[in-house]
């Protein structure tokens, strides 16, 4: 097995040497910042950078104590809960709401369908900057600042999710739905028992993309969650960043590392789905 993975040594040409050197150098550039973040956490903070430039991890125990410190002495753990709840609720909401609408747009005819769909698709062209301030003002007027619903609800009507699921559901055979109708399925049951299970792959892809977008969302929580109880991970990290905070690099990087763990795990598990999901957005757009 491992032999098969090695490049065939018989074909060393200047071209292949250049190719491999380039590929490895770029790989180092791509991975180094993350590797470095890891090393900073797992290094003895007492050692000056000039002696230990954090090119590899040096102290496992300081890493653990860093993590403990960040979780207990700062508001980080609470922010983590908020971020997890925000992300899970958003994923569930986006999947439910956009799959219900996609089901109708993809498989049925009704008056006004084309116009509604066109309006939603046009919204893909409108930048976030256009809606940010007025949405904030609306949420404020509803009294939803510093609440979970204020964080989650405005992000649920995802035009992108609707577009992606509609494209996918168009491939569900009509006969499948007719068979279910003859079997006695109601309109909702068609959606629940037939369309949803058949769209599993697309739903998983959308869930992953929504996860990455929500977990990394910076600007919306920054605007809506102004009280420390409702801070998300991104805001705590940004607070550590501000010049007044006097936070040391090992604390910042520990917070960063903990924030990076969920996306990294997701990436390791769903690598193919993520890559294919993003690749397919390109070919469809």
């Amino acid at each position, binding site marked *: 097995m491992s032999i098969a993975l090695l490049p065939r040594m018989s074909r060393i040409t200047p071209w292949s040497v250049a190719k491999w050197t380039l590929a490895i150098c770029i790989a180092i550039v791509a991975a180094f910042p993350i590797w470095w973040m890891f090393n900073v956490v797992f290094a003895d903070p007492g050692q000056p950078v000039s002696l230990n430039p954090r090119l590899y991890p040096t102290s496992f125990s300081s890493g653990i104590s860093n993590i403990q410190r960040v979780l207990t002495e700062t508001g980080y753990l609470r922010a983590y809960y908020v971020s997890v709840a925000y992300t899970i609720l958003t994923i569930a909401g986006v999947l439910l709401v956009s799959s219900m609408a996609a089901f109708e747009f993809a498989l049925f005819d009704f008056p006004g369908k084309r116009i509604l769909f066109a309006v939603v698709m046009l919204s893909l062209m409108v930048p976030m900057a256009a809606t940010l301030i007025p949405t904030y003002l609306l949420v404020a007027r509803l009294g939803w600042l510093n609440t979970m619903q204020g964080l989650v609800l405005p992000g649920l009507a995802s035009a992108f999710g609707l577009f992606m699921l509609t494209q996918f559901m168009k491939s569900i*055979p009509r006969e499948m739905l007719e068979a279910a109708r003859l079997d006695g399925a109601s309109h909702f049951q068609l959606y629940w028992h037939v369309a949803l299970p058949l769209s*599993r792959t697309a739903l998983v892809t959308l869930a992953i993309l929504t996860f990455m977008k929500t977990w990394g969302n910076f600007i919306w929580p920054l605007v809506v969650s102004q009280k420390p109880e409702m801070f998300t991970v991104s805001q705590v990290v940004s607070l550590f960043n501000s010049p007044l905070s006097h936070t040391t690099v090992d604390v910042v990087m520990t917070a960063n590392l903990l924030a990076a763990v969920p996306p990294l795990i997701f990436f390791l598990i769903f690598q193919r789905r993520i890559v294919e999901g993003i690749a397919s957005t390109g070919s469809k757009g």
Partner: protein
Amino acid sequence: MSSLEITNAHKNYGAVEVLKDICLDVSSGEFVVFVGPSGCGKSTLLRMIAGLEEISGGEIRLDGQVINDTDPARRGVAMVFQSYALYPHMTVAENMGFTLKLSRAPKREITEKVDQAARILQLEKLLDRKPGQLSGGQKQRVAIGRAIVREPKVFLFDEPLSNLDAELRIQMRAELALLHKRLGSTMIYVTHDQVEAMTLADKMVVMNGGVIQQVGRPLDLYDDPDNMFVAGFVGTPRMNFLEAEVAGLNAGTVEARLSGSDSGLRFAHGGAGLSVGQKVTLGIRPEHIALSDHGGSATFPLSIGFVEELGESTCVHGEIPGGARVTVLSHGARFADDRQVHTCFDPAKVLVFDQQGRRVRSG
């Protein structure tokens, strides 16, 4: 007793009329086949019976009840689709029991009915598989099983065998015939394959251009078609059609001259509805033409174009004087291409059609 009655049904999509004035009675327990070329409206008619297409006008009654506006699930019909339409995320058992699950039947009843249907179709060993793991024939059986579980008044089949390969199709055809015998229920079956229709049907409904051309037992349609369409559609190889002109009317026989030649042909016909000089089309099936090496009276020379030798029969294609193409089906004999032989038409088997393609019966 008539179980399904269709009266004056029609269907249009906007200005396009796809079914015109359909009237049809289906008796209880009958196996009815709708057959016709693609686009003739046979599937639309079936889907109207199922409730998947709206009826633009007319009435459909099932057991005396008008079902025009009844929800498809409540009509008491079950349908087997061309693509099988099995739910890929459910096992065979779940597929078959889905309708019962939706109607909140108790678990025990579901298992019982599914097992019973599985026994009939020999699917017992496949109940836990997913459709993706089944062969085409097995999928087809599951689709039928799903229909059986519903215990419908009428089974509807929409070209169910067209996705199978030739050998399996013949096998499933036989199984379907057996199943019909065993269940004794009313079945309506749509196909474009007239062989399938001939072998399965108690009653065959030939359709073309949204109109029912003729209804009857398969052999009646074969022997006694109402028009040129039915005559040409039913039977392979196709019936030969020859343009001709009526030359003389005698007692019990008619004499006709083939267009483009001096050759005359005399055949049995009462003469009713025919007059001398009238242009007609004569139809004769390939098996009703005999071939011989010797010419004689009432024979035409045939220049052979090509020969299809199928073993038990030989199909000879050629031209007779006047340029009409003729196909002859002969049994046993062997013929070489490019040879002249003589054809002899069986005078009792010649059918006459008028200019509109309507059959002119003997009287």
